């Protein structure tokens, strides 16, 4: 049984306007998304900014109330939990954020930042210092850092502190939301190595969110590609990279510049602007930018379908 299952999840934000701030519309941030993640696996979510990745992550964490749909972690369905159950579930489910600058409270020392969770969950022990010191070493920082403040660290080090906080409760699942996007290349590789090592030693399951296809490919076993609130293609990582079906996935892959001058390639350069999620195009949401779009694409929304039976490779396209 999958350790995490997201079913038909929708999250719409109201758009308020006018003098009385009445609702004038909806932002369809996540619109009917389903996927599952097996224990110990990494599920990658990739797509351009605004496509709903962060919103989806926050819904799974229970930080946003879903508009509809369900999220099941192990045996429990998130929306049906009492507050106490939610609290205990939250030890199983943790999140790492993109911005290591904003996600740490600048007035707290590293010790206070890391102790907080133990105290909230009633796990404060006499030897907490020792436990936290070990935790820091596990993420590649020295124990001397305990009394220092976040601003005294580099971006990469701050992300290590964020990771230490996330793994401190021995979670089952970690939602990593763009964990290396704010970091330089040489720092990125170190953080990715750390996440892979922790996954191995702690048996962690990751939902790995990024707009960077190279990063998602390196980290993931299976990948979902999002466009305007929907998953448009999903398959195991190598299939996405070698046999993508959806024209959006292919355009996205072809747009990534490779660090190899001999690989300069003929790009699929998309025309047109990304439509707004407030007013998504009818039919297939990608049809306004799709090089293959036809009449049917404007009229009917393609379903996420498997071309071969049970291959696990699904795409939402009328043609491919």
């Amino acid at each position: 049984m999958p350790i995490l299952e997201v079913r038909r999840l929708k999250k719409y934000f109201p758009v308020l306007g006018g003098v009385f701030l009445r609702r004038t519309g909806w932002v369809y941030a996540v619109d009917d998304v389903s996927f599952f993640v097996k224990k110990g696996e990494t599920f990658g979510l990739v797509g351009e900014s605004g496509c709903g990745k962060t919103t989806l992550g926050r819904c799974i964490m229970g930080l946003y109330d879903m508009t509809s749909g369900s999220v099941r972690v192990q045996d429990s369905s998130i929306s049906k939990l009492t507050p106490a159950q939610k609290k205990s579930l939250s030890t199983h489910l943790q999140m790492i954020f993109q911005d290591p600058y904003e996600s740490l409270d600048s007035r707290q020392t590293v010790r206070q930042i890391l102790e907080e969770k133990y105290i909230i969950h009633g796990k404060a022990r006499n030897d907490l210092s020792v436990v936290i010191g070990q935790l820091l070493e596990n993420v590649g920082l020295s124990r001397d850092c305990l009394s220092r403040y976040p601003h005294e660290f580099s971006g990469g080090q701050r992300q290590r502190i964020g990771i230490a906080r996330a793994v401190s409760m021995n979670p089952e699942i970690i939602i990593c939301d763009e964990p290396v996007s704010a970091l330089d290349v040489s720092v990125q590789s170190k953080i990715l190595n750390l996440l892979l090592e922790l996954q191995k030693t702690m048996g962690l399951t990751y939902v790995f969110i990024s707009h960077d296809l190279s990063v998602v490919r390196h980290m993931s076993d299976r990948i979902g590609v999002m466009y305007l609130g929907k998953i448009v293609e999903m398959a195991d990582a190598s299939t996405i990279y070698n046999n993508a079906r959806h024209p959006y996935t292919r355009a996205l892959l072809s747009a990534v510049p490779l660090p190899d001058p001999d690989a300069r390639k003929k790009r699929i350069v998309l025309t047109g602007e990304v439509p707004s999620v407030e007013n998504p195009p009818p039919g297939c949401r990608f049809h306004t930018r799709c090089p293959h779009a036809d009449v049917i694409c404007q009229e009917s929304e393609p379903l996420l379908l498997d071309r071969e039976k049970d291959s696990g490779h699904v795409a939402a396209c009328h043609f491919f």
Partner: protein
Amino acid sequence: MKKDVVLEVRDLVVAFDTDQGRVRAVDGVGFELKKGSILGIAGESGCGKSVTALSIIRLLPRPVSSILAGQVLFQGKNLLTTPIRQMHKIRGRKIAMIFQEPMTALNPVHSVERQMKEVFELHFPRLTAVSVRDRSLEMLTRVGIPDPGQVLKKYPHQLSGGIRQRVMIAMALSCEPDILIADEPTTALDVTVQAQILELIKALKEKSGMSIILITHDLGVIAENCDQVVVMYAGRIAETADVRSLFKNPLHPYTKGLLASIVSRAEISKTVLPTIEGNVPSLSNMPAGCRFAQRCPFVKQICLHVTPGEVPAGKGRTAACHLINEEPE
């Protein structure tokens, strides 16, 4: 200055006055921009790319910064000693710059039309109002904006990131400059939009024959767009090379480490990526000798004491590394 070179930077030293005292953010940087080519400046954040670019057009923040030494040679003049009034004429007209965040270059309280008009009026005071408008529309069309008439009326915040970047490029190119300096022009954009903008810049270059300095931390962007590359580390140049040699055969240990650590170069997923030991030293606490020495897997005694000069390393390449001195190519 060689004949095919449109801009040459020599031994540029830029200092900032900070709480920790005076630090050298750029320390002896030099390179040549060949006519009609794209020169890439690569390196991780804080290594001095933007400071170098801003020095060229004399837009460094004052009074905290000062240019302590160096020359920027352009059309027989040293721009660093050119009177500021003449610089106003060169800036925009001969050398234009675009930035990562278009909002820094665009004025939020004026419409696109008014801002484009100002550019034309500054550099071509004799143009009539009608031809200014025609030229503005033409420029917006050239950068691939579908409804230029509409965009002219808009204010910057009413435009998407991609369109804003196009407007800034249109303004930068409206005077047909000889040189375009693009500082992380696509870093804030999505990859599909990045691809559009880079294609656009290259197409405009082919038409006009202008030369480009393309600054980016993204080595993929460097590999796919540049002819020559300068790799910077901690305020100095580590290595310069043509783009193919750089990626095929990096010479400086920093470049080697940087290229190896790129995720997309990894053959097999979920394997340990190569990394560079340690962190970039801070400007206020730069080690003596080679600034990369503490992190270098090949470090020798001499590296800790003597600053390596940039030595020729064949095929027009240079590398600032003592190890290259030992074994010339």
